[in-house]
């Protein structure tokens, strides 16, 4: 019985150990930071990663879901930084949505928002 209990506890430990996402300690800071209130169009949309990320898709959308033009400043190569330049924006809420491929093969996605006021 002791051996069975040992096995059960060990299996539970193994389960804990093998969970991939427990090892994730994702944090994100961006420029603009999420929830920022700005009075003028940001000069740059900027993200920094602590491990090379291949950004495969990024878009800037307004509150209606319309896509705003941005100019990517980086290609598809894995990089610790990504930046893009938006064109002049009208007041309103905007969201940056991105997807990418991490170096360990994980497909990643994320988004952050900011608001432009008069």
């Amino acid at each position: 019985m002791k051996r069975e209990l040992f096995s059960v506890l060990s299996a539970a430990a193994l389960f804990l150990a093998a969970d991939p996402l427990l090892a994730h300690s994702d944090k994100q800071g961006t420029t603009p930071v999420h929830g920022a209130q700005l009075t003028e169009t940001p000069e740059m949309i900027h993200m920094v990663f602590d491990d090379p990320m291949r950004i495969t898709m990024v878009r800037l959308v307004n509150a209606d879901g319309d896509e705003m033009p941005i100019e990517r400043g980086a290609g598809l190569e894995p990089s610790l930084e990504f930046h893009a330049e938006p064109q002049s924006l009208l007041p309103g809420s905007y969201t940056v949505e991105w997807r990418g491929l991490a170096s360990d093969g994980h497909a990643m996605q994320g988004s952050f928002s900011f608001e432009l006021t008069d």
Partner: protein
Amino acid sequence: MLAALASADAVTWISILVKTLAYAATLVAAGSVLVWLALRELSADGRASLLRMAVVAALAAAVLSVLRVPLRASFLMGGTFDGAVDPMMLGIVFDSPLGTSVTVRLIGLALILAIVLPLRGARWIALTGALMACASFALRGHALGEPRLLLGALVTAHIVGLAFWLGAFAPMSRAARTEAPPIAAALVHEFGTKALWVVSALVAAGAVTLVLLGAADPAALTTPYGQAFLVKLALFAGVLGLAALNKVRLTPALQSAATGAAQRLRRSIAAESVLILAILATTAALTTVTSLPSEQARVAPQQPKTVQAVAHASGDFPWLS
């Protein structure tokens, strides 16, 4: 994670479904070979049935695994069909760890098919294939951290154990349904005995993995990942409970040919299968909507400078992955 799932597009949902089924089919294909080789109490009909299971599961696993490449490409392009057929994006995915993993898995699955060949060494070819299919899980995620070789070996060992467990469900259920109680009881008893050793053999692997990954951080349980992990842990507790029930109550009942014992055992195995499928689905969801940086950013203080710490000591380790 729920928020991410709620806003997930169709491609993300399809990816989760395909990934879940690919996990299950690969594990059953490899596990069928392991069980075929390891359980001496299998009847002749049971062996023939298990061979068919291995072949069907291997073919299904191959199709599902290949499908993951265009699905990943589509996801990376925002969930569009154009992404799924974009040569450049397909190339990027194929060059990523996922591409390597799928390639190794396909070779392994092809070798598993050798089990039906009338060759003297066919079983060893199939065993090699089963081990390769299991090792394919170690070619991304967790196992890409350091020490890479050790982590890869631990992940592979873990998947081999899981495959053996899953691979035994169908033959045990079949035996309980079609074989005489003493024959079915002998098979279930043999599995119970060997499964205990398999789990015990994984103890060291689990402990070392835990230490190497430093994953036992209670603070992680406050994150969406941690909360989803608790769901998986609850499901896993259910699996272990049923496994214990099978060994302690249902196997002796079957050995004594108690009325309804076979039916109860089959129901228990079916419930175990559903729980494990739920674990695989939860894992697939977690590893597909690995989006959560943004979710966590919304509850975490922002850094003055942009920082995203994506600790890639993790991966598509299904099960417990």
